[in-house]
C-alpha cells in the first residue's frame, strides 16, 4: 500500500457507521476505498449530492453527475440531489458528521491554511471555509513535509488561515496528532516512523502522548 493510501486508511478508521462524510480533493478521495467492514458512510459533495458513488467506467460517464472536483462519479441507492444553497445549509448547519480535507499548513493550535498562496494566480476558496466552520468533525490528511522538504506543521501559518476553528485530527505519512485545548498532541506514529523523525520535520510545539 503506498503512503497516500496508508494515510487514507488511517483516516477511514475514524469513521462510524452512518456518518455523513465530505471528502476533499487528493488523499481524502481515497478514504472511501478503505472503509472498515460494517461501516456504511454517506458521501456528501458540496455541489449537490448526498450519496456519491465511485467513479464510473468511461462508457457510463454522465456529464451532469460530478463531484466537487468536477470528476465524474456515480449515485448510490438512497441518494438525493439538491441545490448549492441547500448543500451549504447542510454543511454550515452541522449536518455533515466528518469533513476530511488536505492542507498546505497546520499551526500549533490545529488551525489550517489550505486555500490561498499569495502571489500565485490561483484565486479560489470554494467550500473550504464553510466545511471548516460547519462540519462536526474535521480531519486533515496530508504529507508531513512539502515537496521541497519544508515542514507543513508550523508554529504559525505563513499562509492565510482558512478558519479560526481548529481541526480535530491531523494525519500525515509520519504521525497522527489530536488537537486538544492545549494544541497539538502526538498520539500515534505511522508504521516505520520514529519520534525523532517527527520532531525533526515538525516546526510547531506539540505534546507527546503515545499509547
Amino acid at each position, binding site marked *: 500500500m503506498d503512503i497516500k493510501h496508508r494515510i487514507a486508511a488511517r483516516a477511514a478508521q475514524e469513521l462510524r457507521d452512518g456518518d455523513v462524510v465530505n471528502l476533499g480533493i487528493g488523499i481524502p478521495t481515497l478514504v472511501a476505498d478503505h472503509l472498515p467492514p460494517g461501516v456504511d458512510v454517506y458521501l456528501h459533495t458540496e*455541489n449537490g*449530492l448526498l450519496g456519491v458513488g465511485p467513479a464510473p467506467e468511461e462508457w457510463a460517464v454522465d456529464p*451532469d453527475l460530478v463531484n466537487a472536483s468536477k470528476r465524474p462519479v456515480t449515485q448510490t441507492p438512497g441518494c438525493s440531489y439538491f441545490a*448549492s*444553497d441547500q448543500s*451549504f445549509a447542510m454543511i454550515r448547519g452541522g449536518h455533515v458528521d466528518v469533513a476530511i480535507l488536505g492542507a498546505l499548513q497546520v499551526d500549533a493550535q490545529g488551525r489550517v491554511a489550505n486555500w490561498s498562496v499569495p502571489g500565485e494566480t490561483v484565486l479560489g476558496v470554494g467550500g473550504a471555509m464553510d466545511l471548516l466552520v460547519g462540519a462536526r468533525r474535521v480531519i486533515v490528511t496530508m504529507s508531513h513535509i512539502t515537496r521541497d522538504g519544508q515542514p507543513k506543521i508550523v508554529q504559525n501559518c505563513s499562509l492565510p488561515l482558512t478558519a*479560526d476553528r481548529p481541526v480535530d485530527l491531523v494525519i500525515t505519512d509520519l504521525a497522527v496528532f489530536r488537537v486538544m485545548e492545549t494544541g497539538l498532541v502526538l498520539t500515534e506514529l505511522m508504521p516505520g516512523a520514529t519520534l525523532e523523525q517527527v520532531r525533526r520535520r515538525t516546526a510547531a510545539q506539540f505534546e507527546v502522548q503515545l499509547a
Partner: protein
Amino acid sequence: MKEKVVSKPEAIAHIRDGMSIMVGGFGLVGAPLELIDELFRQGQRDLTVISNNVGEPGKGLSRLLEAGRIRKAIGSYFTSNPVVGEHALAGKLEVELMPQGTFTEAIRAGGAGIGGFYTRASAGTQLGVGKETKVIGGQTYVLEYALTADVALIRAHKADRLGNLVYRKTARNFNPVMATAAKLVIAEVDEIVEVGEMDPEVIVTPHLYVDFIVQRGGVA
C-alpha cells in the same frame, strides 16, 4: 397566458452593456452554455458576472473574459480558470472572492428579501477582513449582504410553458437559487412540455421566478 418561450437572440437582447449577470453552473456542469455563446455573439461588454467559476480557458464565460468584456467577477472558485488570476493581477478584472456557502447564501438572501445574514465562514480570515462581525452564542459571525443581479442565465432540464423548472443531477447546483435573485431570468432547457405535464410536488423552480425559456439546440 404570457408566452415565455423565445429564441436565444430575443432573450439575450435584454442584456445591455454594464449590467450584472448571474450565471449558473459548477464549472461547465449545469452552465447555460448556449445562452453564453449567444451573449458572446451579441457583443455586450462592461459586464459584472456573478458565477461560482468563470468558465474554463476558451470555454463558457471565459471567452467573454478573454475578449475583455467582463469588468468584475464575483464568485468562489476561479482556481480552475487561470485566465481569471492573470487578468486580476494585470488589473484588467476586478475580483470579489467569497466562500462558496456565503456566495450561494447571499444570492438566496437577494431572492428572499433578506438584507443580510451572519455566517461563521471567513471569520478570522483574510476574506473576513473589514467585514462587520457579531458574537452570537459565543462565536464570531461575519455579516454578509444580499446579492442580486439584473439578469440571471440559468440551465434547467425541463420547463413547462409557464416556466416551472426541474433540473438534472448535479447540474442543478446554483441554478435554482440564481433564478430567484435577478430582475430578469432566462432559462436554457433540454425540453419544453405543456402546462400540467409536470408533477406539482417535484417542481424545483416555480414559474413565478422565470421570465423567458429558451430551447437548447433551437435556432440561434
